[in-house]
């Protein structure tokens, strides 16, 4: 019952609204003065232009800031380069400088270790490359580092452990006319087998 009353009231209210609206529409004639219209529209235009200008100014500001940053960075790099010795290039050269002693020290340590290992070689009969050396008389005294370098070279070239085969390869290099490689191989061979007789062709 109450719901039916509510529905009735809703319909009644709708009817009232439409009747009031009809009368009201006959009344609604007042409009803002033209000057007021103009003032509002001018304000809208001004505000829009101001926003546009602000956007442009922001863009200019960002561009100016970017240019300044790039200039400052370039200037900084130039100044840093000016402080470095001629021929070196800034941070890279200083880094290289820092690295060079370290590399040299590492190389030195490596050589020392190799020397320590190479020193007892004559007594160690189990090492492949050193086996023929046992049969040979003791090698003439050499500076430790040079000897190590030579044995290192010999090891790297003569992987077979056969001096005759090695000499064959050296002869092939001679026939091919590869003088540089020939000299290297020959030097390595002599270092590995100092008393091994060389063929006539290689004795010159």
């Amino acid at each position, binding site marked *: 019952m109450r719901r039916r009353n509510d529905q009735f009231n809703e319909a009644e209210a709708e009817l009232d*609204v439409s009747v*009031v609206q009809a009368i*009201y529409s*006959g009344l609604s*004639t007042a409009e803002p003065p033209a000057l007021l219209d103009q003032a*509002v*529209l001018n304000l*809208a235009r001004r505000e829009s232009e101001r926003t546009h200008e602000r956007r442009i100014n922001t863009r200019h500001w960002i561009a100016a800031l970017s240019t300044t940053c790039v200039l400052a960075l370039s200037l900084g790099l130039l100044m840093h380069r000016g402080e470095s010795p001629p021929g070196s290039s800034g941070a890279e050269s200083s880094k290289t400088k820092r690295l060079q002693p370290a590399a040299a020290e590492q190389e030195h340590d490596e050589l020392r270790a190799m020397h320590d290992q190479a020193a007892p070689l004559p007594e160690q009969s189990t090492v492949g490359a050193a086996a023929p050396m046992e049969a040979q008389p003791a090698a003439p005294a050499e500076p430790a580092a040079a000897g190590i370098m030579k044995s290192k070279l010999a090891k790297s070239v003569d992987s077979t452990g056969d001096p005759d085969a090695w000499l064959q390869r050296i002869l092939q290099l001679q026939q091919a006319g590869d003088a540089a490689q020939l000299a290297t191989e020959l030097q390595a061979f002599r270092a590995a087998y100092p008393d091994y007789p060389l063929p006539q062709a290689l004795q010159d």
Partner: protein
Amino acid sequence: MDSHSDEQLMLAYVAGDVTAFESLYARYRGPLYRFILRRVKDPATANDMYQGSWEKIIKSRRTYRQEVPFKAWMYRIARNHVVDYFRRAPPPADEDVVELADTAERPDQLLEQVEAAAALARAIAQLPDEQQEALLLKLEGGLDLHEIADVTGVSVETAKSRLRYALAKLRPLLQDPDKPAGNIHAQA
């Protein structure tokens, strides 16, 4: 531009299109002005309030969100502006609405219709403030109950009840337009 919705026009104006604002303004200049005029009941004050409302609408355009109907957003700003004004200067009690139908401009209109409209305007002016506000938002702004509730910051039920009371008070006038508005107010 006329085919665009209010919301599209407002967003276009926010993006910098002034002609979009001009279209939007043309749609609402009359309704908003009349809403304010019938609330403050004084043309000079209404002019100030009207200009101030649009100023607020323009300046707070960046806060506008497309999800909100523009009409409701606009009326909320105008309504709050009027409420602020009433806080400083309370609304006049029983003043006649000044902008009644001008018979000189519309000689073809029947005298009875003009009188009925004038009586309605007087009756609306005498309604309690909250009911008057709800009714004007409905009649002038064309807002639905949800929008009226949103604009006035009350629940839909409250807005509905205010509107219903306002119409109930106007009903005697609708049945007998010759009845003085004062009596309508007294019956409410």
